[in-house]
């Protein structure tokens, strides 16, 4: 699904590839691209499910406005994957429903 040759933008070249993990499964990604792009390239379409009806969701706006592409990234739920760049070894999980409320430490 990668656009390698392009009549206007030319050939995609010199891109460093890294490995990220989607639900523990390794995936090749281009360093610095949004997580959502890596997943679409790998043919992964469902990014999260809704909390009430458990319906699948994927990218809608791809500019960080809607929240359809939210996933658990490196343990952080509700991460907008369309505006979060990948890095080597990143762990991405499909978010099932609403994320649990995290207990934060009191500021000292």
């Amino acid at each position, binding site marked *: *699904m*990668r*656009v*390698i*040759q*392009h*009549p*206007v*933008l030319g050939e*995609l070249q010199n891109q460093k590839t890294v490995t990220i993990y989607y639900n523990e499964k390794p995936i090749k990604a*281009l360093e610095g*691209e*949004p997580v*959502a*792009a890596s997943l*679409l*390239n790998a043919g992964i*379409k*469902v*990014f999260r499910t809704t909390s009430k009806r458990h*319906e*699948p*969701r*994927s*990218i*809608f*706006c*791809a*500019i*960080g*406005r809607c929240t*359809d592409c939210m996933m658990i990234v490196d343990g952080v739920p509700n991460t907008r994957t*369309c*505006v979060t*760049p990948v890095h080597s070894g990143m762990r991405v999980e499909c978010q099932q429903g609403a994320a649990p409320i995290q207990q934060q430490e009191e500021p000292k």
Partner: protein
Amino acid sequence: MKQMEVEVVVIGAGPAGLSAACQARMAGAQVLVIDENNQPGGQLFKQIHKFFGSREHQAGVRGYEIGQKLLEKTIACGASVMLDSLVYGIQPDLTLGVIKKGENIALKAQKIIVATGAKENYLPFPGSTLPGVMGAGAAQTMINVNRVLPGKRAVMMGSGNVGLIVSYQLMQAGAEVAAIVEGAPCIGGYGVHAGKIRRAGVPFYLGYTVKRALGEQSVEGVEIIQVNERFQPIPGTEKLLKADTICLAVGLNPMNELLWQAGCHFDFIPAFGGHVPLHDSNMETTICGVYAAGDATGVEEASSAMEEGNLAGVAAAEALGYLSYEEAACKKAEIQHRLDTLRDGPFGQKRRAFKEQQLADMKAFDQGSFMGRMQA
């Protein structure tokens, strides 16, 4: 909380914001541009098509090249750009609440230029939340910026310029466009764009709308249906199209939440995407010292956004004393002339009339006679 002070703060590093920043900075003001994204340029970098208009509007130059030049100009003139930073509020004393990577900053500004752009409209129908249904702009970001196909075979809803251009760009990227579906009886965008797609063999279904998207976990097809002149579906006219992607190109609406929050007064102009802030010919809103520019003041296109940004930048610099009345008037007249040429022709004249209405409503507001506008 960290405190900062700046003369001019520009919110949004897209075409309008960067243009405003350049104008204010070149006049001598201290300028900080803030953007929540990790790279500046707004949506220009996904525009790989050549722009229209005249030479002074860089006609024939591709959007991302215009963005690159604008960025270089911004850096060269010495405006600061702060990325990964979210403005979450504007106080009455023009202090901004900003979060930069978890750090909270109170940023005191003398002038604020809000250039926050627009977001895509949604179209509800059964199956419209399925993975594979996305804004046409989202598909455009994926193919042109991230170099990934969102799907192999797409159906485009809407035949305005966005629908037409993104359909063509999907094909350039190697995807198939199954059809362009348009509720109106005629094509919405420029004929030159439509012609290119028609010649490539893409069918147009005019006077059709989507009935439902098919699929369980993601889009597998779309059922379209003919509508009558009152946009009501005609039973028995359904058609099934095979597709894994449905792109919605059904308009944009301004992102002006910060202006609402700041207490600005609004107009209601459906042709500009709905609620738009009242502003004067300096792009200053009903809150003194808060300016707006670009799609946030009414959805048009990148060229007019840049000119509105220029106006706001000049006006803010003038208000701070960096430009004399005469210098500013001269610059503003040139910009206004270029704006008027953009708002010309069969597509532009309507926008020009609506912009004039927006300005007239601001005058009425100042005189105490603007009571708001309801949908006709």
